[in-house]
């Protein structure tokens, strides 16, 4: 999850980070040294805590090599010690990006300083895209945030819309090996246009659309993303012509964080 690279973000927000796996102290010590890990890597040999929590991966039989791993996931814990949010994955190879955890679970804006970023001016808006990770790592899902920052007084439509109107759309394409999932749009609010018997759903301000992407090839240096953002900016009375803004973003392929071969 590349927590170490993002540890500052958590520390600044007053969040302590703990990572737990079934590895021995020796394995964790070697890993911590190799990657300069500064937060606690905790050894749950025998998976005692995982079993107490009830998150032992039950898809793996006791006679299989990887028995004892958990369903991968994270708990966000509040100051009072209660779970405030949790995210878990059913499949053990899927890992969320550290920055998306920070944003989704703690509402902390991540520092996008070193992340792949691109922006362009559109009609009545600025359109940008940033990956919530510094790279795409094999089989790791990372969110691409596409933002339409609208000028004051303007809004865009969220689909579905009647014929003749343009719903906001984001399309991301790339080479074979890129998997793009359905975009998630922010909440919209109802809006009526005089003389039209339809209640529109509109979004204004900074419209942030999250597109989960992942890289499924165990090779490559760079993934070129073509991002097409189609929208129509309107105020209360009239609309600009619909625009399609095209963004190009080269995303580096990160090194797999596990350099050693899997055990036989």
């Amino acid at each position, binding site marked *: *999850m590349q*927590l170490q690279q993002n540890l500052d973000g*958590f520390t600044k927000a*007053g*969040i*302590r*980070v*703990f*990572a*737990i*796996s079934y590895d021995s*102290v020796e394995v*964790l*010590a070697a*890993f*911590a040294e190799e990657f300069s*890990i500064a937060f*606690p*890597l*905790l*050894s*749950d040999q025998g998976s005692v*805590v*995982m079993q*107490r929590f*009830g*998150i032992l991966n*039950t898809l793996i039989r006791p006679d299989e090599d*990887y028995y004892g*791993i*958990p*369903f*991968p*996931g994270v*708990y*966000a*814990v509040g*100051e009072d*010690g*209660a*779970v*405030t*949010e*949790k*995210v*878990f*994955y*059913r*499949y053990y190879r*899927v890992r969320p990006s550290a920055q998306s*955890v920070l944003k989704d679970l703690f509402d902390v804006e991540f520092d996008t300083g070193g992340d792949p970023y691109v922006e362009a001016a559109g009609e009545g808006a600025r359109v940008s895209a940033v990956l919530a990770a510094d790279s795409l790592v094999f*089989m790791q*899902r990372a969110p691409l945030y596409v933002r339409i920052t609208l000028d004051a007084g303007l809004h865009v439509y969220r689909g579905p819309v009647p014929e003749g109107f343009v719903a906001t759309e984001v399309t991301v394409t790339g080479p074979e090996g890129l998997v793009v999932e359905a975009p998630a749009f922010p909440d919209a609010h109802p809006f009526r246009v005089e003389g039209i018997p339809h209640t529109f759903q509109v979004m204004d301000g900074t419209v942030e659309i999250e597109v*989960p992407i992942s890289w*499924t*090839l*165990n090779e490559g240096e760079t993934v070129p993303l073509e991002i097409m953002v189609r929208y129509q900016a309107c105020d209360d009375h009239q609309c600009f012509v619909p625009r399609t803004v095209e963004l190009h973003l080269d995303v580096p392929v990160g090194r797999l964080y*596990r350099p050693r071969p*899997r*055990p036989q």
Partner: protein
Amino acid sequence: MTSDASQNAPQEMPPNLRFPETGAFPTGPEVGEALPDFTLMDQHGRPVNFAGSRGGQRALVVFHRSARW
């Protein structure tokens, strides 16, 4: 690097079976419940108690498969 072509074929990304979108697999303590306390050895061989180490701060507790593979 291996020359085995199958190693370089695209892998199938599993469906985004994720809690909270699905409750189809166990995910432990629920939102709103206290996270049970635990004490485990860290990478330096020192015992770390969660509650004591957290010291009233917020925390992110990550369960991951292994540091080795």
